[in-house]
């Protein structure tokens, strides 16, 4: 190998990893570097001992992070996600998983249940029309109204008379006025079907999400969502990185970039072909040689300040169904003793296995002492997705915030943790025991306006929007946009590579060879 690459990618978060796989599969020579000793960056899956190390490192610069409890036995058998999320069964992310072949590296199962806590009690959110008809919680009239709304939301609502002029009104308001839905039903639809993060979110983007999730239901089963094994996103990021490596990508983990500079062509010792001139040089800890590349693609957080202002920041148009981008997310990761189960409030639909993967939604204002403006999501994981050893469970609590909070994550989330521990019944009616818990504030790099005159080949990837249902789809959309920008900055010079093609395909058709079928394969 020489040290010249087409692309160097810094950071192994989901967006960067998908992009690296796509670039590598498109035939570009990729080096992928992460200063962390693990894959996945802010979406990593960590074992519990790795999580404790992560907390300790973070405490050096973030005093507000708090951690309680001792490391339990079998700490390495946990896969804790730093970016817990579910995967919509239809959408850009799952399409990328399948088209790239990465779905075969991982295991997935349906999200067990979606439950909403409102009016002081837990209710299952119907996953299908049949569920609605079987529900005892709603009157017949209300069922008719809900059904009418669902038909509307699943259809071509863009030009409907119902929506006309209402696109920007708050969804809750729209549901009351236009579909005459009760407060409880409207809140369930807003927060547990449209997954709005904040009060007064606009109707149109929320309708886009509802339609997408209604369509997703039934593809693999009743739930619209899948969950990944071993912590989900972090594991999947590893899968995309493997896909890149299989195509020749070089992986360097656990070493920081010590210097990064743009290359002045005049200073090169051996100027080669003019089309092949590197634009950037980087030095990596412990590597004697400099690495060169023509395109440098970095997560914004890993770019040194002066480069950040020179980079082309990827900002694709995802506003059509995007929830507002939060300023930060208050997070809690808690490990509990005893399996996570919830009592059913509707008749058992015949599911043989009680899933330990569920999503519990607290709408704004639903919990005394909780947030009045943000919806809080609680995701659970356990042995069902091989995320915890037998008999243990993991709770992820997240609260998106639109502005800087004066309170710590612990102050914001402690009431929710207490409530959840009471809601999940333990054996002999005792409260579930907490093994360990971590509270922290995840701040997101704001998408500042990039320069009007960016350095050619320097691309900055914003941090992933940490939305439970929509985050991974956004990751795929941003990754595709990043891939296209990188490919066009590289192909500008190598015209022959894609002669006649207007655009490089994001995922080329999987070759038989890659799928490894057949016994007479070439190595």
């Amino acid at each position, binding site marked *: 190998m020489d040290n010249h690459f087409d692309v160097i990618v810094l950071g192994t978060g989901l967006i960067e990893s998908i992009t690296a796989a796509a670039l590598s599969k498109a035939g570009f020579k990729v080096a992928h570097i992460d200063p962390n000793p693990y894959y996945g960056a802010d979406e990593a899956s960590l074992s519990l001992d790795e999580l404790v190390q992560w907390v300790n490192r973070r405490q050096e610069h973030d005093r507000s992070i708090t951690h309680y409890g001792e490391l339990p036995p079998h700490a390495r058998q946990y896969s804790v996600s730093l970016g817990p999320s579910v995967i919509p069964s239809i959408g850009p992310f799952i399409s990328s998983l399948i088209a790239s072949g990465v779905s075969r590296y991982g295991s997935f199962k*349906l999200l067990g249940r979606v439950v909403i806590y409102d009016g002081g009690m837990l209710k299952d959110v119907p996953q299908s029309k049949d569920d609605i008809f079987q529900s005892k919680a709603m009157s017949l009239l209300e069922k008719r109204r809900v059904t009418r709304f669902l038909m509307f939301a699943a259809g071509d609502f863009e030009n409907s008379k119902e929506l006309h002029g209402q696109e920007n009104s708050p969804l809750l308001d729209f549901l009351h006025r236009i579909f005459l839905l009760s407060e409880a039903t409207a809140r369930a639809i807003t927060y547990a079907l449209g997954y709005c993060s904040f009060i007064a979110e606009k109707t149109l983007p929320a309708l886009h999400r509802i339609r997408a999730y209604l369509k997703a239901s039934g593809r693999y089963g009743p739930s619209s969502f899948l969950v990944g094994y071993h912590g989900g996103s972090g594991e999947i990021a590893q899968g995309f990185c493997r896909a890149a490596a299989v195509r020749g990508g070089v992986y360097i983990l656990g070493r920081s970039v010590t210097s990064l500079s743009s290359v002045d062509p005049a200073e090169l010792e051996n100027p080669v072909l003019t089309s092949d001139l590197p634009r950037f040089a980087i030095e990596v800890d412990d590597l004697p040689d400099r690495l060169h590349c023509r395109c440098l693609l970095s997560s914004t957080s890993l770019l040194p300040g002066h480069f950040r202002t020179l980079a082309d920041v990827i900002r694709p148009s995802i506003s059509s169904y995007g929830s507002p981008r939060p300023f930060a997310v208050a997070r809690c990761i808690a490990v509990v003793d005893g399996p996570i189960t919830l009592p059913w409030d509707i008749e058992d639909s015949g599911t043989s296995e009680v899933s330990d993967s569920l999503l519990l939604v607290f709408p704004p204002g639903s919990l005394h002492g909780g947030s009045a403006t943000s919806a809080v999501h609680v995701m659970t994981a356990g042995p069902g997705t091989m995320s915890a050893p037998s008999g243990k469970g993991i709770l992820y609590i997240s609260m998106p915030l639109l502005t800087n909070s004066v309170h710590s994550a612990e102050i914001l989330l402690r009431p929710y943790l207490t409530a959840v521990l009471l809601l999940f019944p333990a054996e002999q009616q005792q409260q579930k025991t907490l093994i360990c818990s971590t509270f922290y504030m995840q701040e997101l790099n704001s998408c500042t306006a990039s320069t009007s005159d960016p350095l050619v080949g320097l691309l900055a990837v914003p941090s992933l929007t940490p939305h439970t249902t929509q985050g991974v789809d956004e990751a795929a959309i941003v990754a595709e946009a990043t891939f296209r920008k990188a490919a066009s900055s590289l192909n500008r010079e190598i015209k022959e590579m894609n002669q006649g093609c207007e655009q490089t395909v994001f995922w080329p058709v999987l070759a038989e060879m*890659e799928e490894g079928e057949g016994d007479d394969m070439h190595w």
Partner: protein
Amino acid sequence: MADAASGSVDRSVQVKLVLLGEAAVGKSSVVLRFVSNEFQANKEPTIGAAFLTQKCRLEDRVLRYEIWDTAGQERFHSLAPMYYRNAQAAVVVYDVTKATSLEKAKSWVKELQRQANPNIVIALAGNKVDLVQTSAVSSGSTPSSESEDEADDATATPGESPSASGDEPESLRQVPREEAQAYATEAGLLFFETSAKTGEGVVEIFTEIAKKIPIEHILASTRGGAGRSGGAGGRTGGAREDVNLEEQQSKKDGCNC
């Protein structure tokens, strides 16, 4: 036994087998020998296949090995845990002419025993044994194809100092067979010395692993799950309701024949 010709065997059990070991010990070459009965001198560092499959017939049962190669990610110690997490078998390879590669192999065994499926069957393979056999020793002055491979790789991997390969043929072996055998016995591993170049010991690794794989356990834990999902035989051992993401895409892919 490596039955490449057999067409459709419905009762085959899929086994995920991962290769581990230091860069340039010949992991890919061992598999290439097993799957295609080939040996390529000057083999490029691994590029290309996500995994290879090879059926293996053993008395009344048929195993379908899904063999995962590291894709070079071990080079900067960047192998993802996802790679070996659900493996039912592992072949940990070292190079008999390089003592440090056995140390690396030992650390991989440790990692597997901590992190992987508890029923995993691990085989330790001391490769490049052709280099230390009498015929090879007598012609030791000409660098063998495999050590060229190593040199290739050294240039490909800045930061990793190339092995100080002994120039004198007599001193080529750095790992005595007895030492590795004793370690393997102590750690509960299958043990072989192999040569991907001559084929010695290669088929035996996969046959012995096949004999040791707890097939009933794998069948029990995949029942009801999608056959294609790489990760059977987990900790829980219970029935898994995995979703095969490709099921709705193409019926053909689901049949897993």
